[in-house]
């Protein structure tokens, strides 16, 4: 055993792991997880993983028993997004494994490091359509960064080591390890490799000096530059470098949805979010810029609207990304850097100088003042935007906020000004309803002392609200804010605008009484109908030392604006009726 490993065990107060001792595959797995410094596992048992759960019995690990595998993987995902450390989940074979599929795809789309462990039937039964058999490695090939089917216990330590390495390096992503039951039961002397060697795998990409010089040159020539900062800033922990670079070069920063918090939304150079529901200024900046600098952003069609020729029509596009396949994938670029944003910016900062951008900055400032996000206040009616403003003001932007998917998600992205990286957690790429609440549980477990708010719609909450059981069981003090418009709001909005008010299948008036539902799980439940009630109830929720569900009854007809309808370009932006 290496010295570092021995120290690690001492530090974590784990009984020393004997190398060379004959142990089962299940025990091998758990020892490997300890050596990877895993602290929490989110999971759900079943026949094929019984050996693993038996080894967990009385062990050092903190295992969170969710009420659905989807809850487990989204919680692991929230944990990973809140910490940058890999999330770990376990599910049994067949239905347990397939219940992970949505969560795996969610993590893949947003580049979240996860290690998903599934059991499978014994190898002698593989391919026989045995009870609870599913070819989960096959099913998940297109939605994992990599996957393993373990055939031999002697490969298991190497596989686990590789899985963590692959999940967390380069462009992060989910890795699946499928372990058949016979391998979990088999015995072998325990070993763990010191190093990972994967031929052909590019774990990190430090750009060459020449690439960085070209990058700096292209940027310095711009008069109307804008940075488009994506989730890559957060994944690479490059927020300080981004800030230094933007301030030194005097370049305004647009945060993509995934990049919110990667640059403070309160900064004078911040232009917040662009795209379909982005703000006027950010979109105008893209339309008028002479240089768009994509940093760890993938030019998603929620920003380009899929009309890539009309996107940023006056700009040279400069693109830095750790994944070379992103360069030139969606938009034509003038300069590309295949590299980690953090090391690229660190190399660029000493070379960079201020752009002649002051006239541009004051133009943007004018737009910002003229066209802020706005909504019409309406007496006693509680507006959903007002709920988000309340959450922001009451926490001074310091909370970790997770959202589900729909209108409330967009309002949160608009009205909560995220200051810190990893404080906004939301399913951006896949748009997974049911994600927000379990993700908040993972984030709160990672940060027990911070305020964690889960903003959910009345629709999406009902996809995973059974996880109220675990916030109750483990006293996880998540504050759930249901933006309850009694319908599938985002669908309603599209039906109103594009389907002639034909509201097909969006009525959620027959939902449970969320206050009683919370109480049924032993969780505090509160309700507000008016702005005044909202303030009082929310203060009570924040003051409560434990989980709370707050049912904010909001106006149903509210739409998310600004909006660029699909098919349109960024200059065809609806600002809303007020």
């Amino acid at each position, binding site marked *: 055993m290496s010295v570092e490993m021995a120290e690690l065990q001492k530090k974590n107060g784990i009984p020393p792991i004997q190398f060379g001792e004959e142990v089962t595959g299940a025990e091998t797995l758990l020892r490997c997880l300890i050596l990877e410094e895993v602290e929490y596992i989110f999971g759900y048992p079943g026949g094929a993983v019984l050996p693993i759960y038996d080894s967990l019995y009385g062990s050092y690990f903190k295992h969170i028993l969710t009420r659905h595998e989807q809850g487990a993987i989204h919680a692991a995902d929230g944990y990973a997004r809140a910490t940058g450390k890999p999330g770990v989940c376990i599910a049994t074979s067949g239905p347990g494994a397939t219940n992970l599929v949505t969560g795996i795809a969610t993590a893949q789309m947003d580049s979240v490091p996860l290690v998903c462990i599934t059991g499978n039937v014994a190898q002698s039964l593989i391919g026989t359509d045995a009870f609870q058999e599913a070819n989960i490695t*096959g099913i998940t090939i297109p939605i994992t*960064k*990599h996957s393993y*089917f373990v055939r031999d216990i002697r490969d298991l330590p190497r596989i686990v080591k590789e899985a963590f390495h*692959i999940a967390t390096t380069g462009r992060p992503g989910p890795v699946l390890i499928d372990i058949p039951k016979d391998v979990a039961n088999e015995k072998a002397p325990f070993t763990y490799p010191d190093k990972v060697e994967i*031929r*052909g*795998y590019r774990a990190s990409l430090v750009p060459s000096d020449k690439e960085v010089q070209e990058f700096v040159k292209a940027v310095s020539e711009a008069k109307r530059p804008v940075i488009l900062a994506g989730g890559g800033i957060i994944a690479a922990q490059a927020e300080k470098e981004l800030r230094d670079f933007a301030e030194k070069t005097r370049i305004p920063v647009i945060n993509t949805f995934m990049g919110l918090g990667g640059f403070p939304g309160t900064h004078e150079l911040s232009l917040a979010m662009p795209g379909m529901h982005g703000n006027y200024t950010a979109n105008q900046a893209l339309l008028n810029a002479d240089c768009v600098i994509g940093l760890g952003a993938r030019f998603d069609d929620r920003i380009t609207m899929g009309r890539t020729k009309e996107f940023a029509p006056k700009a040279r596009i400069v693109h830095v990304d750790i994944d070379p*396949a992103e360069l*030139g994938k969606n938009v034509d670029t003038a300069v590309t850097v295949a590299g980690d944003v953090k090391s690229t910016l660190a190399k660029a900062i000493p070379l960079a100088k201020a752009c002649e951008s002051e006239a541009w900055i004051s133009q943007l400032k004018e737009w910002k003042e003229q066209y802020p996000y706005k909504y019409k206040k309406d007496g006693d009616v509680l507006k959903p935007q007002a709920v988000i403003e309340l959450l922001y003001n009451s926490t001074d932007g310091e909370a970790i906020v997770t959202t589900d998917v729909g209108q409330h998600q967009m309002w949160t992205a608009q009205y909560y000004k995220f200051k810190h990286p990893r404080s906004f957690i939301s399913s951006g790429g896949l748009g997974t309803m049911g994600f927000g609440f379990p993700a908040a549980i993972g984030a709160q477990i990672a940060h027990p002392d911070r305020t964690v708010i889960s903003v959910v719609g009345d629709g999406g909450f009902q996809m995973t609200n059974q996880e109220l059981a675990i916030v109750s069981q483990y006293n996880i003090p998540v504050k759930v804010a249901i933006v309850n418009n009694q319908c599938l709001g985002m669908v309603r909005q599209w039906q109103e605008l594009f389907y002639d008010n034909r509201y097909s299948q969006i009525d959620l008036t027959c939902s449970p009484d969320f206050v009683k539902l919370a109480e049924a799980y032993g969780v505090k439940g509160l309700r507000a109908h008016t702005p005044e009630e909202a303030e009082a109830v929310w203060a009570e929720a924040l003051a409560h030392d434990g989980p709370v569900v707050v049912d904010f009854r909001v106006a149903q007809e509210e739409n998310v604006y600004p909006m660029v309808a699909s098919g349109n370009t960024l200059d065809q932006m609806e600002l809303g009726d007020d």
Partner: protein
Amino acid sequence: MQQHTISVLVNDQPGVLTRVATLFGQRGFNIDSITVGGTEEQGLSRMIISTGGDDRQINQLMKQLHKLIDVISVTNLSENPFVSRELALIKVTASPSQLAELNGIVEPFRAAIVDVGPSSLIVQVTGDTEKIDALLVLLQSYGVIELTRTGSVAMARSIVPVTAAATV
């Protein structure tokens, strides 16, 4: 749209072919032909894939292929001179009395008759796609009962240093 021949060096792991094939489907590319076999090094396989696309698409495809963990290198052979061969077996309606006549057709192609039956025979031919197509046209008049052909195996010509080929 241009035809490209891509050489992909991969770990010889179960499921690698599925991963590569899935990537093509997932990213909207078509596979015209694919061959897989052993290489000079144990534990590695080489895939030769023919596909169509413009430069941008092929570039993207190569980068996406390289993202697969089991892929070690990706080379676009079409960017430089390369050698490519296919093998075909063609079963033709013919009686033994027509053997000489058929030999006359087959020989200029350096093909061979490798099986003779009472009413059919099998021609074996190797070469580039065009050559095989040309022989097929000639044999068609006899009646082709069955045809099986491999995709291309291909290799860059030695005048091109390996590092100069477009490799991701």
